[in-house]
């Protein structure tokens, strides 16, 4: 099943963003999409939840072709997809508790249950998801503006996890986070996919995280797929851009040896 892109093309005005992109992600897999800024990474994600529609080609989530669905039909698909945005995107008029429980109160989530959730059950889920991202129940009644940027991002992640989505889409989840939280988020992505068979697609600049966490890596360049393959395949790739990305990572790991060459 999973998620499948079939010859997707997309342009904004004269600018081509995606040019004949096809790939497949199977259930429980973690795919990292790497590429330079403006390579079309975020646009790829937005196609999956149907916020953007392809000019040609089709996008399948499970068995459903989301590129031809109406907005009403899309809500059922979106219910299965959890999207984590680049910014925290918390609703700033609501408390942390209301933010995290937002997705648990939508009609189509309630329709997928046998009976409506009681307030106690909602609270239990909220606290459980917050603890997954290392936040205690003391933040529940705070407003988003009272939290640090890193905490807001973690609350945002908890909000996405609350309705237990089958597919998780991350738009640069670790940008702007400190190294320790970055590791925690990567571990969380890994655990979710192994324990709950959640499919994850992660858009990132961070080759280091990708090498550690990903099952497969896809590199986008100039609107096309440059290469796609497992971690070991990527490491042996001859493409210049991939090598640049890898060297950047090596420089982080082994600063002294690079310096020695110079």
């Amino acid at each position, binding site marked *: 099943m999973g998620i499948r892109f079939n010859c997707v093309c997309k342009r904004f005005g004269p600018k081509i963003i995606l040019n004949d992109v096809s790939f497949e992600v199977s259930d429980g897999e973690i795919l990292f999409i790497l590429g330079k800024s403006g390579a079309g990474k975020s646009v790829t994600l937005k196609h999956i*939840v149907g*916020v953007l529609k392809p000019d040609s080609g089709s996008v399948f989530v499970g068995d459903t072709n989301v590129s031809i669905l109406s*907005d009403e039909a899309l*809500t059922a698909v*979106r*219910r299965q*997809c*959890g*999207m984590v*945005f*680049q*910014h*925290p*995107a*918390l*609703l*700033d008029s609501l408390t942390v508790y209301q933010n995290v429980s*937002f*997705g648990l109160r*939508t009609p*189509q*989530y309630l329709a997928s249950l046998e009976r409506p959730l009681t307030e106690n059950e909602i609270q239990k889920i909220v606290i459980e998801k917050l603890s997954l991202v290392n936040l205690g129940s003391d933040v529940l009644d705070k407003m988003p503006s009272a939290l640090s940027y890193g905490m807001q991002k973690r609350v*945002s992640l908890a*909000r*996405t996890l609350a*309705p237990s989505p089958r597919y998780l889409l991350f738009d640069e989840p670790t940008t702007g986070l400190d190294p320790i939280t970055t590791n925690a988020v990567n571990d969380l992505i890994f655990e979710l996919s192994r324990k709950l068979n959640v499919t994850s697609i992660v858009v990132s600049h961070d080759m280091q995280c990708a090498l550690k966490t990903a099952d497969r890596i896809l590199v986008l360049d100039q609107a096309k797929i440059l290469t796609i393959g497992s971690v070991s395949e990527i490491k042996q790739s001859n493409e210049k851009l991939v090598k640049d990305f890898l060297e950047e990572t090596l420089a982080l790991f082994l600063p002294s040896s690079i310096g020695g060459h110079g």
Partner: protein
Amino acid sequence: MRELIVKSMNRFFHEFGSICLFVATIVKTVFCTRGNAQAILAQISSVSYRSVSTVAFAGIFVGAILVLQFHRILVQYDGEIFLGGLNTSAVVREVGPLLISFLLAGKIGAFTAAELGTMRVTEQIDAIQCLGTNPIQYLIVPRWIAIIISSVILLVIGLVISIGGSMLVSNILLDINPLQFASSIGQFTDLSTVASGIFKSAVYGTIVASVSCYEGYTASGGARGVGKAVTQAAVYINLYIIIANTLTSNMFEFLQDVLVPFIKGAW
């Protein structure tokens, strides 16, 4: 020069068409989904509470300006006895709704555009959509309805205060006592004056609501985008209000003078 005119005409009609489509979507959502009366009431009270002191302040001065101007002109015709009536009628029918709604364009229109624009550029609206909630239903509809209702409330409050302000100023500065001021009001105004004032308020309120929601909802591009949305909302609200003012200015008299005799004749 010709290029400037063609360009601004193009932009004007493009913008106007998009706003109409947006309002059509809102209206469709209003009728197709269950309304949330509580959210609407909360919005009404927050919008009205935020703006009422500003509207009152502006109302007093609008009344005062008009009284001074009209008095100066009427003295030349020895028509001071008409001051109260002319001033009240002008405030209620025409200048009051116009000037006060310019203030609402900033106080409510720009505020809403800024609020929604911020939610758009910080991806909050996308987040709502991805969590499976229709942002038009959740964010726009309560605001749209609330802004229309509270605009009417605020404009009516503003008009009443303007008339009070006129009386006060004419008493203090021009030495006309309030009874004298009120004596000619009946000559100028009747029920249609009040109806016209309220109708105009509702039309202007709809303009404020629709344009500000549209500009905020379609904002893009970070802090700069929010600034642009707010500016555009303020400019377009003012422009549309002036156009609507022209279209509705003599409508009630037209209805009274043409339609009523016509119906009577047909009867």
